[in-house]
């Protein structure tokens, strides 16, 4: 695996994300050991920057593997995790964003990655996260009339 090439790519991504204007907080970019974590780069971006991050990943020819949510009850936040993998490099990047639990909204990346459509619908099913601009945010796995979000930690409580 061409490690150097990887690193420069990661640096580029980090620079690009960091360089986006009017960012309230600079993105957190940490390099992680693949053997310990299963991914090479851990990027945290503000919620409204996920599309920018997705665009960078798209330009670097990464593939979108999954989008998932994590309900951090204690912090009253949802974490949205985007898993990217590079087909050619065998490298894996995690992009995270956090939204408040009360107003879980962030932009969709389904225009950049059409495959994100279903993943976002699934995250909406499970957590009730609203992806603004999503073409059809209707239940995917749950029944059409489902109004519950089972993977929220307070579900059923």
């Amino acid at each position: 695996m061409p490690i150097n090439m990887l690193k420069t790519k990661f640096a580029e991504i980090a620079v690009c994300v960091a360089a986006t204007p009017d960012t309230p907080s600079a993105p957190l970019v940490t390099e992680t050991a693949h053997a310990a974590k299963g991914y090479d780069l851990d990027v945290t971006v503000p919620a409204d920057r996920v599309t920018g991050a997705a665009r960078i990943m798209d330009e670097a020819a990464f593939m979108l593997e999954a989008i998932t949510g994590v309900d951090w009850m204690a912090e009253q936040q949802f974490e949205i995790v985007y898993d990217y993998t590079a087909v050619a490099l065998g490298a894996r990047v995690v992009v995270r964003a956090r939204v408040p639990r009360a107003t879980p909204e962030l932009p969709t990346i389904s225009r950049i990655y059409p495959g994100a459509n279903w993943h976002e619908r699934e995250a909406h099913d499970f957590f009730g996260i609203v992806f603004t601009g999503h073409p059809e945010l209707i239940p995917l796995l749950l029944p059409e009339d489902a109004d519950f979000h089972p993977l929220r930690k307070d579900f059923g409580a």
Partner: protein
Amino acid sequence: MSIEAQTLHRETFILNLGPQHPATHGVLRIKLTLDGEYIEDAEPVIGYGHRMHEKMGENRTYAKFLPNTGRMDYVAAMFNTHGYVCAVERLAGITVPERAEFIRVITAELNRVASHLLWVGAFLIDLGGFTPLLYTFDDREQILDLLEAVTGARLTFCYYRFGGVCNDIDDDFIAGTRKFIAHLRSRMPMYHALITKNIIFRRRCEGIGPISAENCRKYGATGPVIRGSGVAYDVRKAEPYSIYPRLDFNVPVYGQGDCMARYLVRMDEIVESLRIVEQALDRLPGGPVMAEKVPRILKPPKGDCYFNVESARGSFGVRVVSDGTDKAYRMKLRSPCFSNLSLFQECSRGMLLADALALLGTLDLVIPDIDR
């Protein structure tokens, strides 16, 4: 386009394919908008097999979740267990004895062969040929016999444990596996004569349902689908795990991106898997099959990790988020079929119904794996 053609009234109708339909291999439903027999839009509707695996991952201990993993992609259950076990081991920092790694690879690759054999038969049923299914099932039963002897299950294996495997393999298994490898190798020319060289089969597969490499990337399609589109992406090579880096095997790639390419990828993978099993058997070391000092109730440290394996259908990933307790805080299961199916809507546009169903067949879907 001439004016008449433009003003011609085009009538489309909606056909609801499924949830019970012979071609969808389970409870997939496809909302088809058809113009005659041409597909204008095919929207898969999933969730008819949703079984809350991710929820269950959160409300039971790590060990109690093990049987669930075998019930997602039940045709290739070993891989799901493998991915899950490895993810937890990575998080908890457990090292697996070498012999156990070898046994894992042997059983997983045998399961891949079984899964592909089942797929070949099921795909031929989609095309209207019934007999190959019974031949492939006959060979598949022999694998199941072998695996049943060591795992105790025919289908939903729950064989791997954190830190190893639950049973050691014996000489009978090794001898039986070697015999089976020789047997299946001798059967492959028969399969090619019966299926690959069949003129109707070729006509129905060559050039049908092309999927571009770009589409695979955009939709996250992996496994034989992306390898049939000319991209040599295989988790076993890209992010080597277990003992795969020490084994010599090829990743079959076909560039056409059509149904035939995906079929040939799977047929070649059967042969490659047999090679892997043979090598692993040759080099099988002695020693224990379980790591010592694996706590009964596992409490991995806080943090998250990701592990993905090359399942029979593509990249199967597990993201475990631990909060330091004996239950996972979040268990994300990334199923390959989910992403593979999501490109169906785009790729089937403008195809004939029967061709689209052939394309659907080559995606090799296991519906409860999609719905989880």
